[in-house]
């Protein structure tokens, strides 16, 4: 399955300025781990502790934000799906 993943602009320095990538995988978890393999520093941000997705990062699958209750990493994806990594920033 090929999925288009959007990376937030604030994480662009971890991806050499690339903000959209096509990634292979059958679940959200696989997709994100594959991104982490391509961009290891981004992988550290996504999975800082023992392979668990950071509690404060959200995943949007097509138009739906996956909450913890949705077990985002195990969510199945289909060919042509779109994933956005939501990296909340605070204050200012």
């Amino acid at each position, binding site marked *: 399955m090929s999925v288009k993943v959007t990376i937030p*602009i*604030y*994480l*662009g*320095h971890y991806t050499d300025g690339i903000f959209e990538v096509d990634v292979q995988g059958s679940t959200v978890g696989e997709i994100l781990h594959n991104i982490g393999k391509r961009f290891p520093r981004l992988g550290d*941000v996504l999975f*800082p502790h023992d392979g668990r997705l*950071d*509690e*404060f990062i*959200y995943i*949007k699958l097509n138009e739906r*934000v996956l*909450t913890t209750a949705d077990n985002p990493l195990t969510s199945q994806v289909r060919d042509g799906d779109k994933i956005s990594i*939501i*990296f*909340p*920033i*605070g*204050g*200012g």
Partner: protein
Amino acid sequence: MSSLFGYHGKILRADLSKPEFTIFREEESVLRKYVGGATLGAKYLYDEVPPGVAWSDPANRIILASGPLGGTSVMGSGTFCAVTKGAKTNGATSTQSNGYLGAYMRFSGFDAVIIQGKAKHLSYLYIHDGTAELRDARHLAGKDTWEIDSLIKQEVGLPGPQASVYSIGIAGENMVKYACLMGDHGHAAAANGIGAVFGSKNLKAAIVARGKNRVPVFDNEKLSATSKAMYEMVQDPAYWWSQADKYGTLWIMGRNALIGRTPFKNYQTADCPMTKEQLDTFSPQYLREKLPMVSRHVCWGCRLHHLNLIKITEGPLAGKEGEEPEYEGYAALGTGVGIYDGITATALCNEVDGLGIDHLEIGYVLSMVMEMYEKGLLTKKDTDGIDMTWGNVEAVRAMFNKIARREGIGNILAEGTMEAAKHFGKKALELAVYSKNGNTLRQHDHRVAWTYILDLCTSGTGQSEANVAAVTSVLGLKDPSPFDPEQIGTHVAKIKGASPLVDSLGVCRFPNPEVPEKLAEMVKAATGWNDFTRDEGMKVGLRSVLLMRAFNIRHGYDASVEGPSPRYGSTPDSGPAKGHGIIPVWDAVLDSYYKAMKWDRKTGKPTPEALRDAGLPELIPDLWPDSK
């Protein structure tokens, strides 16, 4: 006035010089135009403090104002806004604080309190039962802002939640230019030296009894339902503040430090210098595991788990009760000064709170001194023997105590980052992080967020005026291209008004973010103004912006200085903003912003058209005396 909803329609005036306490009724037309909080306060400040009156003059005013939602069933409606001519910029100030005082003021029968004059000696203002009195506070001199809470409550016989106390610490008594007002155990109204203004009036504290006057609400059922809908929105993970529901602002450090938004080493780098283990000590999970919890620390009517009361575990306050700091405190007195341990930073933040000093400004003051010390621009001779090496906890502690007491070098640093840099000379001015109009910037590295630089450097409040990121998403706007001067200017102009609107309602931004549609619904339900719209709400917020700016210009504000200091606007050599600096394009940013705001490019004055559009034509003769 019997049909007035959402207000008592009564304003208390406290003249400390006489002392004398009077009450006046405010017209519904005035309340509708200025609504409350920041905007109503700005109107009173503009009307009552003429040019020539300095911040420390007894003729200066302090307006503590709630709003039509204050003390109602709306979550977080204990908020008030303090408006004054502030010490740091000697200009307009708007600074809000949460907790209980705003609600209790309303329960005491007042929508706002105007404080003027100067007490003969250190005193506190006691508001209760629809009146007020001034009491001797000389025995409370030097008391910290935490212990004074119970001392004053004991004196008036209103322990615990029966009253709300906001006070100044020793920094306010010594008129440190960024002294703040602390209350309800850890809440702060911190901007622009409001604490110094209290000090200049010999006012140690204000205590407000809980009172029994309920606020007349037009449609309580609808108000509660709208508040509930807002809370449901707050919990939506699509919005950043959903994090606040669980952890307040504790989650921010772990994010911002990784994306060049946390200031490190006085803006010398955008890369996080901490190890993963050090960064983890600022995580909410770590802090809430290691800091013994006393209780949840909730504000009036709020369900968010924003903060805990905790036991402090180290330093001179070890064993005492304190409060979990916010992200900004951790950045100022932790990571910003090279102290990479969240538990130690917790202790330092609580000590600074006790002294009554704004975390934001002291963070930049200390990091400037540390960089100068690192580079040999200051030596131990200059720092009164203190080794101002990055990360030296005892040095930080010694220095903030000197600042609070204006001792030695502390007397210079008590003037704020920019003024202290001017004292130290050219090299200090090059490396210090400040806005040239004296406004205090938040503990963020804004070089990756130019909208914030523009907002701060043109704000008339002494601090940031717009909560840019949050407002952008709820207004349905797209983020501007981050380094495009034209887009930056027009974007900030579009969102102006949203944050001051919240600050005009008597509610906190966490459970009530800047969603003008929902806020307008709440105003309707509270007041019965059924034709109050989203756009009218945005215009109310904009009036606050324009009144503050007009006030400053009448008082001699030089708009030509608006801009970031060389370091604040510098070009990062790493992080997401690598290679992008705002200073080379600053004029273009201002061109775009002034044009969108309809401000005169040469003088910075809002044009007659801008004032008319905002419903403030009465200001035109003041700013444009030759205009017909």
